[in-house]
């Protein structure tokens, strides 16, 4: 109790109270001795009440401070209950909200760490396979008496594997950038025709070599990040190309209306099996018909890019055979 007197505010208030009480008592004593006695007793009682109530409040504040201190030192078992009313009650509830927020952030940091560890594990796991092949190829190449033909063949295979690893790393990097929300999507205006041509430009030669036909029918404009969207469209077209036999046809149609911008990519290939359908956009999911060289992340990346720009992507099988990807970028917020 005496500690309270160390508090400057309390001391000041007490001094003023005592001062005015003494004046009041003096005046009352002057008027009538009984009035003075009553005033004296009343003053003492009032000062005592003030002192006690202040003491109680400060005790509660001290308790609160003590709890916050424990929380800062890592004791997560402290819970602040709202057991008082008035200003102190409001303070309690605000502090409680803050501790909840702090706990959420702590959990999020932990989740981020776990996510990072998993991503790194994914990458290293996926790279090990082509690295194993590369080791084997280098071993074969180190043999002294192999023909030039064989040497070229091995070297070509090596280059192929190196390309795949490069692509894998690039794509995983892009996926993690999207996952952690560190990508700023630009808002650029471009015609749908230009966008689709750009998306397919690196695939023209492979499509040609597969003996496939690419038909593009586009009208209207697109607003969004060109580079990322080209990547998304390109990965889907690449997927169609890989699942369509020689002589097949890949068609891309794009339209724009007041509600959305729609890009439809269809092929007349083998289609997607029922078991694979719900999973094809999952990371590292390789369908039954996929080539051994695919990692299963191209479509996952495409979907992430599309959904991050207020879009949706769906896939259906066509009749008699083939696959159809429907991408829609909605204009308002959905």
């Amino acid at each position, binding site marked *: 109790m005496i500690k309270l007197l160390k508090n400057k505010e309390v001391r000041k208030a007490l001094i003023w109270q005592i001062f005015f009480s003494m004046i009041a008592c003096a005046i009352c004593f002057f008027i009538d001795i009984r009035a003075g006695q009553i005033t004296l007793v009343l003053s003492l009682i009032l000062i005592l009440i003030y002192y006690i109530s202040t003491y109680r409040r400060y005790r509660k504040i001290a308790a609160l401070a003590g709890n916050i201190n424990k929380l800062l030192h890592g004791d997560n078992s402290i819970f602040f209950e709202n057991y008082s009313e008035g200003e102190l009650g409001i303070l309690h509830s605000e502090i409680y909200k803050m501790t909840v927020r702090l706990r959420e952030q702590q959990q999020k940091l932990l989740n981020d760490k776990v996510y990072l560890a998993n991503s790194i594990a994914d990458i290293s796991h996926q790279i090990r396979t082509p690295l194993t092949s590369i080791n084997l190829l280098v071993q074969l190449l180190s043999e002294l008496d192999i023909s030039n033909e064989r040497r*070229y063949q091995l070297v*070509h295979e090596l*280059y*192929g594997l*190196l*390309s795949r690893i*490069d692509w894998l*790393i*690039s794509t995983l*990097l*892009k996926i993690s950038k999207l996952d952690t929300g560190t990508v700023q999507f630009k808002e650029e205006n471009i015609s749908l025709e230009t966008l689709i041509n750009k998306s397919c430009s*690196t695939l*023209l*030669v*492979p499509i*040609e*070599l*597969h003996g496939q036909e690419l038909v593009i029918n586009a009208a209207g404009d697109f607003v969004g990040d060109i*580079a990322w969207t080209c990547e998304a469209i390109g990965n889907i077209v690449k997927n169609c190309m890989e699942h369509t036999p020689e002589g097949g046809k890949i068609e891309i149609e794009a339209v724009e209306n007041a509600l959305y911008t729609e890009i439809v990519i269809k092929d007349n290939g083998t289609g997607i099996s029922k078991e694979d359908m719900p999973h094809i956009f999952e990371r590292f999911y390789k369908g039954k018909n996929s080539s051994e*060289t695919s990692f299963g992340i191209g479509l996952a990346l495409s979907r992430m890019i599309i959904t991050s720009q207020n879009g949706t992507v769906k896939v259906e099988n066509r009749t008699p055979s083939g696959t159809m990807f429907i991408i829609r970028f909605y204009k308002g917020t959905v």
Partner: protein
Amino acid sequence: MTKILLVEDDKAIVANLTEFLNSEGYTVRSVSGQTAAMNLLIKEKADLILLDVSLAEGNGFATCKAIKAEYDIPVIFLTASDDEFSTVTGFDLGADDYISKPFRPRELVSRIKNVLRLTGNTGKAVRLGDVIVDTEKGTATKNNKDLFLSALEYRLLLVFINNRGMVLTRHQLLDAIWDVAGEYVNDNTLTVYIKRLREKIEDDPANPQIILTVRGIGYKVEI
């Protein structure tokens, strides 16, 4: 001999790339940073500069800007892979081309040749007999009629244009188109494409005048 200035601070890359470019017939000088590059250029001429964007000393972009401000030497950026920010900024600063790491050395040589050709005397339009190739637009015309070359046919033609006067073996041709084609090109496909290209650009495909066969070795397009 074409002189290349390589601005790169990774010692392994410098050593191996220098050896490779030397074997391709280029003289290579290498420096590891911006200051050294600028100092060297005062004393020696270079025909082309390969500039690593992520230098430890100095800044790749600043170096490019400094070089372009004073000299008219073509610059090719070596960028971190898929960094679109880098490539767009690079072009804004006047870089002539870029290639992202990790790159296939053959692809680098291909770009070097392309850039040297574009900034050299022949410029963007190339004449092969009756055929005019506009390398900026990517079109080829014969007697003013569009040849409608497919993507791979055009690419193959470009390889010949960039290596005029030199004999290219089948392997070199396959290597050169590997990057656009991926793993799909086999030897037979190459034969088919040379045939198709000849059918489109030659007056008499059976007696080719533009793409000549060099028996036992490969093909050649004369200067």
